[in-house]
């Protein structure tokens, strides 16, 4: 008897063998967590952007990109650029710059201006190398934040490229060269200053110059590409 009782107890779900559910009794109820009406609406807005119109999504991203452009134009030591990084702005600027650098002395000669892919490679590969350099030197900035900053700070040089093309349409003599040189130099200085305002803070004081020099070289090379653009005649 004792062994039988023990066996019964040891079998799984032993206590339920006597229970039977009649099919007449309906099982119903509400198992959702009671939530107030206002909180539910707020919850939808925060967690799900699937229902909003596409225009709003695109506009929100564009507004974020535009806000960062403004930050680059007036560089202050704010962390907004670093906190919400995105790579749309750098991509847009890189494509614009590469397109503006086309249509140059692009004869069938092998030695011409930079190809579209070359501009891309220089900008992205250069940014990656500078970011790696800054991280190896012990910087506290993250990889994509640094890419974001370096990409956004190409904005002055892209603007200078547009100005140069306009100037070249007018004339291509020594005066236009002097004007282009001044514009490119100013925008190169602006780019370097803007990016170091964001990047230099993330390095210890005795290594700041080691991080700033590659940034200087990077924008110098891009400035050189902008300055030596010569149109086909």
């Amino acid at each position, binding site marked *: 008897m004792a062994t039988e009782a023990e066996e019964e107890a040891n079998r799984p779900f032993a206590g339920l063998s006597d229970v039977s559910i009649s099919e007449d009794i309906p099982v119903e109820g509400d198992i959702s967590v009671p939530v107030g009406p206002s909180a539910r609406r707020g919850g939808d807005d925060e967690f799900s952007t699937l229902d909003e119109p596409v225009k709003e999504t695109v506009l929100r991203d564009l507004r974020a990109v535009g806000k960062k452009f403004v930050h680059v134009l007036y560089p202050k030591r704010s962390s907004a650029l670093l906190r919400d990084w995105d790579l749309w702005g750098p991509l847009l600027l890189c494509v614009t710059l590469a397109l503006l650098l086309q249509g140059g002395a692009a004869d069938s000669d092998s030695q011409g201006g930079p190809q579209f892919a070359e501009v891309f490679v220089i900008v992205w590969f250069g940014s990656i190398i500078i970011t790696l350099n800054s991280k190896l030197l*012990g910087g506290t900035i993250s990889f994509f934040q640094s890419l974001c900053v370096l990409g956004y700070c190409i904005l002055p040089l892209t603007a200078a490229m547009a100005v140069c093309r306009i100037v070249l349409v007018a004339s291509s003599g020594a005066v236009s060269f002097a004007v282009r040189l001044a514009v490119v130099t100013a925008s190169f200085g602006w780019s370097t200053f803007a990016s170091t305002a964001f990047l230099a803070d993330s390095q210890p004081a005795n*290594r700041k110059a080691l991080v700033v020099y590659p940034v200087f070289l990077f924008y110098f090379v891009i400035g050189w590409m902008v300055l030596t653009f010569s149109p086909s005649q």
Partner: protein
Amino acid sequence: MASTNDPFQFQEFEEAGNLLEANRNATTITIEDDITKPEKQRQAAGFLSDRDDEDILASDDKTELLSGQKKSVPFWTFEYYQRLFDVETHHVKERIIGSVLPWPGKNFIHLYLRRNPDLYGPFWICTTLVFAIAISGNISNFLVHLGKPNYKYTPEFQKVTIAATAIFSYAWFVPLALWGFLLWRNNKIMNLVSYSFMEIVCVYGYSLSIYIPAVVLWILPYEWLRWCTIVVALCLSGSVLVMTFWPAVREDHPKVIIGIMSAIVVLNALLAVGCKTYFFSKPEKEPQVDNSVAREITKHPLRHEHLSFTKGSPVAL
């Protein structure tokens, strides 16, 4: 046993001895150098920053010996490469100045690297040199052909790739070959001085730093100026390399010593002259156009592309 006169100094030497016994694979410097180096520094009294060197070097020495050996990290971790960037701004500045001003008796590796080779200097000096050569070559080409009616300016970006390949192969493969050769000779001849691969790469990288101002000077289209700067730069960088590798080979067979030293200098010269020839066109003299053109063809076959370019562009226009 510590002597009562200067117990701390004696303890340092003993620690170094223990370290050497504990791990024979560690990069070694000769114990004689440790003793004789302060004397050599006192002898080179004309050098102004001697006292600064002593202070910085003494503190680096103490911190390294007191902190013990660096633990070895496998080369596929990020930390391994982070250790190669463990330099500060003033370190890099000192190393660059030390590579440009060779002083007899001052070994670059012993004095400036102090078992802390870095990859920052060599990498960025090589990159700067690549762009300096490409840009200066472009400017000098432009200046040489200025005023000629059928010359059309092109930025010539493809030359950046060629310059990069040449300079980075020099800065990487020559140290590799030298390191392998020194390792092989070390097996035959017991040498107290041995350099690690990173230290050799570091020396070669920093020794290229004199060429950056030299290349900028090559923009001016005067042949005598270009050859003068090549000779000066070659002397400075060659002597830094020779003085660095002298302690590593001086106990060897004389023929091997001469072979190694001349190989170092010749490769350096080849790089300099090759860059000058390929990237910087010679200024042609106007009244002797036919003679100089004929001479250019026979002397520099690479110049064919420049000549065919000028001939071809009227068709393109």
